[in-house]
Structures are given as structure tokens and as C-alpha cells.
């Protein structure tokens, strides 16, 4: 077991945000945490990455309790997380300060290539589109070779076409690098497109409502019967009739 959530609860003042979350994530697994706004899913990710301390319970990675942030587990924000004063190269190499220069260069080049930003190495974030900024942030996270990635609605600020492209990019990268991924989203379609398992949380306080395994091989056909069935199952789980 890579990541184990054991009875994780959280409260902010009098507000109970998370209630006894239990979840096991295996090595190399892609897990989406899905829930309505304010259900505490981002809080859960912040606890897992060590930025917040849970009110009760604990999270263990490889059997070791998480007590703070660690560069083996990188948190990816929406595009605003990259440093505007650094170039694409500077951002991707940000976490590589203790590597020798040659190794640093090689890693940067590798990840620039992996996320498809060749030719933009010297560009500043303000010169990039939203999707490109997000690629920079993913590359910056991958460059330090973490074993877990936490993604907090990483494509939330992108337009719908770019979002679709970024999802398939992320899957390609995940298949190449085999990281364990915890991906928070409120987008049902997104979760069914990406995840091995979708963890559906309830409204606040967040509890695990159901865990839905997505037993479709990649690349996924978004009009296949199985895809639509799983998607509608989750829609139903959240209490939404799939009609407008």
C-alpha cells in the first residue's frame, strides 16, 4: 500500500470538514477524489501532502506517517502555482538545486520534452497560455522524481478544449512515469476519463460515499457503453439525474 488514509478527520474552528476518511491507494494507482464544492477534498489533499495537520487520524506513505511537506510528494496547483519571475527552464529546474549542473540540465531537457514545451525553455510564464503554464507546473513537479503527485483541480482554470488535451497528456505522462496520483476534481466526466478508481465524497463534512473502480482500459472511448454507464452511476451517486 502506497498511501493509507486512516480515520482522517478535519475541522476548521466549529466547522467539521472531513469525517473519518479511510482510503488505501496502491503504488502507481491513479485515484480521483470527487465531490461537490466545499466537501473538503482540497483539504484532504493538503493533509496528505503534509501542509495541514489533521484534527484526528493519520496518513501514512509507505507505512511512514506524514508529518510535513516532502519533495518526494509534490502538490500541483492550478496554473497560478508556477513562479512568474522564472523562465520555463527556471521553473522546471526549481527543485533540482542540489543536483550537479549537468544532471540538472539533462533533467530539465527531459521534462521540457515530455510535456511538449521544446522551444519555450527561455519563455516567461506571462508569455504562455494557461495550458502551457499547467504543463510547466506538472514538469516542475515531475522533475524532482517524486513518487506521489497531488493534483488539486489542476485543469480547473483551462478552457474545455485545452482541458481535454491536458487530460490525455497527463495520462500519457502517467503511463510513462508511473507515479501514484491523487487527483481532486469536481468534474464527474474528468474523473471517469482519468482514474483507476473514483472516490466519491459526500457534502460537508466529507465522508467517503463510495469508491467506484473504473474498469476500462486506456485509451478510453468516451462513447462506449461502459464509460457512459460508469459516468451515470456516479451522477446518480451524487444525486444528479443526468438531464438538464
Amino acid at each position: 500500500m502506497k498511501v493509507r488514509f486512516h480515520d482522517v478527520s478535519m475541522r476548521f474552528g466549529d466547522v467539521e470538514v472531513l469525517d473519518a476518511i479511510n482510503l488505501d491507494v496502491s503504488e502507481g494507482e491513479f485515484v480521483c477524489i470527487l465531490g461537490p464544492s466545499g466537501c473538503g477534498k482540497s483539504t484532504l489533499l493538503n493533509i496528505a501532502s503534509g501542509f495541514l495537520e489533521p484534527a484526528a487520524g493519520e496518513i501514512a506513505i509507505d507505512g511512514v506517517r506524514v508529518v510535513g511537506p516532502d519533495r518526494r510528494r509534490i502538490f500541483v496547483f492550478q496554473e497560478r502555482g508556477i513562479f512568474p519571475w522564472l523562465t520555463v527552464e527556471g521553473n522546471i529546474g526549481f527543485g533540482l538545486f542540489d543536483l550537479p549542473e549537468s544532471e540538472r540540465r539533462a533533467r530539465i531537457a527531459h521534462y521540457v520534452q515530455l510535456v511538449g514545451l521544446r522551444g519555450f525553455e527561455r519563455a516567461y510564464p506571462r508569455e504562455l497560455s494557461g495550458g502551457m503554464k499547467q504543463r510547466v507546473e506538472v514538469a516542475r513537479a515531475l522533475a524532482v522524481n517524486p513518487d506521489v503527485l497531488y493534483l488539486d483541480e489542476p485543469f480547473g482554470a483551462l478552457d474545455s478544449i485545452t482541458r481535454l488535451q491536458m487530460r490525455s497528456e497527463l495520462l500519457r505522462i502517467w503511463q510513462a512515469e508511473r507515479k501514484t496520483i491523487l487527483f481532486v476534481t469536481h468534474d464527474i466526466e474528468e474523473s471517469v476519463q482519468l482514474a483507476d478508481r473514483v472516490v466519491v465524497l459526500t457534502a460537508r463534512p466529507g465522508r467517503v460515499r463510495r469508491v467506484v473502480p473504473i474498469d476500462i482500459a486506456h485509451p478510453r472511448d468516451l462513447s462506449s457503453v461502459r464509460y457512459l454507464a460508469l459516468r451515470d452511476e456516479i451522477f446518480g451517486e451524487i444525486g444528479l439525474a443526468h438531464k438538464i
Partner: protein
Amino acid sequence: MIGRSRIQHSTFNIQHSAYPIATAAIVILIWSVSVRLTGTRIFPSPTAVAKGIAQLAQRGHLWSYTVDSLARVAAGYVAAIIVGIPLGFLLGWYAPLARAVNPLIQMLRPISPLAWMPLAVIWFGIGNAAPIFLIFIASLFPIVIAAANGVRNIPPMFLQAGRNFGLSTPQLMLRVVAPAALARIAVGLRIAFGVAWLVLVAAEMIAVDSGLGYLIIDARNAGKRYDLVIGGMLLIGILGLILDTLLRRGEAWLSERR
């Protein structure tokens, strides 16, 4: 579209240089005519001021006074940067410290730097230290406040990312906090310089016998040389404009990199 924007650009450039020159010419003309029409014997004409400045240049005072003034402003200003930026960082970083110290800063800040003059003379006596101290006090507050605000307003995710990649607190300061706060600090530095330059004249009216501020007060006291009073004012204004322009350029360059 390209052609159009080029035309606009060149129009803008003409406005940029020609209009201010025209304005200056008109002001000098009005000044000259008014002096002649009123027949004043106190207020000098533009030519008299120009002659006065030329005379200063001949005696070597123009250069030495300017250098002395610049050196004093530089000393006080640089000292304020050296003290102010770390102090601002501390206040921006440690919220409890800011809460404890802020009322004191907000109380001291509205006191005109000139109110420190008697104390400056008591503490530092006659010489360069007193005016440098006044310039230091004047430019310190804008720098401290800008640095503290710059640090306090850093988006939390930058700090979080820095921590996540394993930076120690000093590394975080150097690699995240400083660059993230830089643009705001640059604005504070420019404001502080404006205040420092403003205080210069008054600062040089005490404790020293050189500099552009001294020139003004000395010209008035020794022989009512109003041509030199006006000349000194113009020199201070022109130098201030040049230095402010340079700082603005620096600021624009910094914010462009963001």
C-alpha cells in the same frame, strides 16, 4: 494594423519629447516677460539665473555641490535600504512582530523628517552625518512598509511550493520571498527616493556648508542672490527628474520580468 500602431507609436514619441519642451519654453517666456513687465528687483530673470549658474560652474561649486548632495542622498538612502528591507521582511514574515511594531511605525511615519532636525544636530553635531540621518529617516519608512507589504502579499501557493521542494527558510527567503516581493519593493524604493530628495534641501540647511540645499540658503543669507536661489531650485528639480526617470525605468524593467 501594424502600420496603424506604428503611426500611433511615433505620435506618442513626439508628444513625449516635443510637448514638454514646448511647455518649458512657454513657462520661461512667461517668466521672462513677467520679470520685465513688473520691473521687480528681487526676482531674477531666466538669463540672470543662467548667468548665476554659469558663475557657479566657473567657481567649481556647481560640480562639487551637486556631488556632495548626491553623495549625502546616496548615503542616507542606501542606509535606509540596508536597514529597511530586512526589517520589512521580518515584519512581513512574522505576523505577531508586525502587530507589535506596526503602531509604532504608523506613529513615527507621519512625523515630518524635518522634525528630527534638532535631534539630528544634537546627536551628530556639525558635518555630514546629520543631513544623512535625516535622509535616512525620511526614506526608511516607505521602504520598510513596501517590503513588509510585498512579503505579506505573496500568494501562499508560492511559499507552499517552495516548502514542498524542500527549501529551508533562508533558501525560501532568497529564492521565493525576495523575487516574489521585488516588484512591490521597487515601487517603495522609488517613493522613498522621492522623499529623500525632497528632504535634501532642508537637511543641507543645517550642519553643512556645501550642497544644493546649502547653496539656496547661503545665496539667500549672504547677499540675497536670488538668481542662485532659483538656480539651486532648478538644479534640484532637474536632477530629481533625471533620477526619478532612471528609477522608473528600473521599476518597469522589473515588472516586465514578472
